[in-house]
């Protein structure tokens, strides 16, 4: 006998949706969250733009989170806050989860596990920033926490490295808060963030975006005093002789997010080398039976709405008592695509209206996406523009078993 049918780890948008949908499907559900409040990173995202797809309205992060929390509160799912998972042991079947919280150490058994552990930001050292090691070098999310949650301003004059969405959002936030953003520098030749964020956060505030330029060195002992910026070649290697020094007291990094899958790894869940999240089937179950994932732990999303969507899929699937695992077919894609999620389709499970998320490797114009099921083309979808920062989503019904392949072709063909 298990204490719970489903334990969800992580109370951000993915975990909230997973827990409430699992509970609605009749599963006894426990949601574990290590912080003191639910909502995850949404709590510090006071800008709007959330919920356009899911609620057809523009919400701020905390508003969106509150809607999800309200939905969860309507269910019988239990929530344990300030609760940190220290160990997961695989049972045959099920799992034993050991947690620590201010009440003590507890262990729970559960039939199914949903890992909604989110992602973390890549740090300065992970993008090989050298020179001194001063204060004032921080990730965009950290700056966001300080300004929006603690109400403390860590910046007067800053350089932002990386054009990821959080960096763009923070460029605007810092400016509104009275700080000065000297510029946003991006080593790649195209921006990493959503086009709408470039327009609304940089262009509208006259903040320059420098492509193919990166920070190569930092100066300052106790606090940052300046950064060295170099142009980079098409392999993103700095070009000697192009260095310039920019004085600043802060360097804000928005150089990528990494799905947080330490718990997944601890129980041997195979991860995909590109997404850095578990390899999953259409029910978002990993290759370890009974372990599901969703949201940014599965792959880095750019919209919270799709994070919630994936949470719901995982929640519903985990709540189902259907234990039959059929033969999974691998989904493949051509070299124009960076990845497709799910990477597997289990034809013993529901194959109607399967949601696929994908990203392209480069910027493409006038392409057509073809999805093959065996030799049949089951989807043809034209795209004017495809960009790596923008995740795409297609819904497919797979009437018969077969190999699934995503191919991107020129529209002219």
């Amino acid at each position, binding site marked *: 006998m298990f204490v719970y049918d489903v334990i969800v780890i992580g109370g951000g948008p993915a975990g909230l949706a997973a827990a409430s949908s699992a509970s609605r499907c009749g599963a006894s559900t426990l949601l574990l969250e290590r912080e003191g409040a639910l909502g995850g990173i949404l709590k510090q995202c006071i800008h709007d733009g959330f919920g356009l797809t899911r609620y057809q309205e523009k919400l701020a992060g905390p508003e969106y989170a509150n809607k999800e929390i309200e939905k969860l509160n309507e269910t019988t799912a239990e929530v344990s806050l300030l609760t940190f998972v220290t160990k997961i042991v695989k049972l045959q079947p099920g799992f034993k989860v050991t947690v620590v919280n201010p009440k003590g*150490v507890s262990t729970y058994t559960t039939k199914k596990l949903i890992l909604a552990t989110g992602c973390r930001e890549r740090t300065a*050292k992970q993008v090989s920033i050298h020179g001194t*090691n001063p204060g004032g070098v921080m990730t965009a999310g950290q700056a966001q926490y300080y300004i929006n949650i603690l109400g403390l301003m*860590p910046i007067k004059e800053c350089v932002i490295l990386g054009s990821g969405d959080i960096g763009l959002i923070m460029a605007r936030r810092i400016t509104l*808060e009275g700080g000065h953003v000297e510029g946003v520098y991006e080593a790649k030749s195209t921006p990493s963030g959503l086009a709408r964020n470039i327009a609304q956060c940089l262009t509208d505030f006259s903040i320059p975006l420098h492509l193919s330029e990166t920070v190569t060195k930092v100066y300052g002992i*106790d*606090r940052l005093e300046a950064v060295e910026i170099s142009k980079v070649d098409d392999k993103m290697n700095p070009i000697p002789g192009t260095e310039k020094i920019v004085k600043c007291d802060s360097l804000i990094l928005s150089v990528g997010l990494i799905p947080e899958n330490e718990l997944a790894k601890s129980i041997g869940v195979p991860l995909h080398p590109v997404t850095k999240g578990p390899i999953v089937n259409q029910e978002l179950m990993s290759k370890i039976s009974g372990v599901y994932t969703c949201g940014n732990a599965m792959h880095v999303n750019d919209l919270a709405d799709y994070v919630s969507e994936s949470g719901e899929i995982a929640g519903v699937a985990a709540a189902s008592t259907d234990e039959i695992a059929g033969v999974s077919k691998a989904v493949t894609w051509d070299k124009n695509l960076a990845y497709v999620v799910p990477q597997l389709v289990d034809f013993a499970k529901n194959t109607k209206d399967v949601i696929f998320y994908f990203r392209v490797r480069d910027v493409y114009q006038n392409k057509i996406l073809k999805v093959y099921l065996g030799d049949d083309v089951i989807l043809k979808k034209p795209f004017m523009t495809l960009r790596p920062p923008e995740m795409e989503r297609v819904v497919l019904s797979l009437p018969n078993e077969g190999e699934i392949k995503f191919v991107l072709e020129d529209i002219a063909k």
Partner: protein
Amino acid sequence: MTKLEKFQERFAEVYPSFRAEAKDDCVVLSGVADNYEDLVKAGQMAAKTKWFYGVINDIKLKGYEPTPIKAPSFSDKALEGIHVDVLVIGGGITGCAILRELSKYQLSSLLVDKEEDVAMAASSRNDGCVHVGMDLHKGSLKLKYLVRSRKFYKQMCKDLDVPYRQDGQSIGFTNGWLKLLVRPALKIKALINHVPGGVKVLNRRHFQTIEPNIADDVAFGVFLPGGACTSPYELTIALGESAVHNGAKISLRTIVESMKVENHRVFSVQTNRGIIYPKVVVNAAGAYSDVIAEMMNDRFFTIHPRKGTDSIIDKAALPTLSRTSTTVYPKLGQLKKTHSKGGAVMPTSDLNALVGPDALETPDREDYTTDKARVDAMFDKQIHAMKNLSERDIITYFSGIRAATYEEDFVVQKGKWTTNVIHAAGIQSPGVTAAPAIGIDVAKWASEMLNAKTKEKWDPIRKGIVKTRLLSNEERDALIKKNPAYGHIVCRCEEISEGEIIDAIHSTIPPTTIDGIKRRVRAGMGRCQGGFCQPAVLSIMAKEEKIDPLSIGKKGEGKLFFRRTKEGK
């Protein structure tokens, strides 16, 4: 022609623009060097004679403006006019080990350091290796103090509640035929050097049971079971805390600016916090120890700073890397004589992997910068030891400065000209290993100078901060039931609780910065490098110390914040 004249002649041939003159039995080099390499090599040439008492290298580097010493920006009168029996200058592992030994005597002892914490220079910028002394010269002070320290090191770490892991040390060899030479040579060397645990020469198959991930072309290996590691900053802090617990005093953010020396005695020491009147002064000033010796009118050695860079690898990658401190002996022909063992891949006491250090002569005593090319080079080299090594697994890197003398040995002795000083200077590798035994000698000499007896009561035990992640579920549960703060995990990467951070804030040498907390409990040392926990640590500090978060900084005198955000309406 005297020995000196002969040397001067040879020296003038090699370095016509430099001068070498005698001062007592030391040699003083002067002139202006076009490049730093010449400056260092001139000093090394003088040291090579071995019969000078010491090398004073005053050669200047052309166009080089020495970086000013990093000093506290303030001054006050906190120490004005105080009299102490022993003043220790420098709060690294050597100074703290000396202070702890001094606390065994009926003496008043004060340690001063210019930084905001102890262990701020080489003692935290360090791999924590507890060496076996295989490569040291017979008769050197390095070997003498290493051998003495190793006899009680493990017990000392236990008394001080700091980590000590004896995983061993390994050297791989690619030239199989070398085994015939290596085995007898190392066996003898291990005997001569009193290598703890001895030495084993293993064929590839046996070596692989010790190092399963060793590079494929390694033919055989040397295993030194006595190789160990500790946390160098935890140990330094623990030594300092133990000393304070036993009555010694520590004053941080206190820089020695000058000394008054009269009749071959240091009479007074001017600091930014007032003039101190000590009876005995101990020089444990690391990379600045020759500067302090100069102030003491007792300089007979020169520090030429040697930078080393270490990289720290994500804990998750350790199982694919080394189990012991491992390196590969360079292929014949690549052999170059250096003053560093050339780095290794090793598990740290907290079970990250550490790669490094390298060695680079630098004129700047506090040049802690890192350089991508040097990290790349270290990985290119160590991939020949550990085949799975990847720069992608790096979570951080840092540089430290070794306080090397031209003699390449420690300077542990009473003053040469000034009678009430003791030097524990030029301490570089294996300083972390040797420091505890150095402390014993220095404290003994100081007590003899002052006719001081040992205390009747002295407590060797120092209790560290509990590491809740290492407790059993039952112990952890019981602890949390007593204090729920131990159940609130603040640092997710290293599993550090709020209770541990609160303990650090109220510890014997209280940290004043975010990094100070990090060195005590590891919050922020994991893969996110404090991205998630720094705000929480900051909030706990502000609350516990009842201070404004605006006054808190990451390190040194830098502050994290400029102001509060605009108020909403």
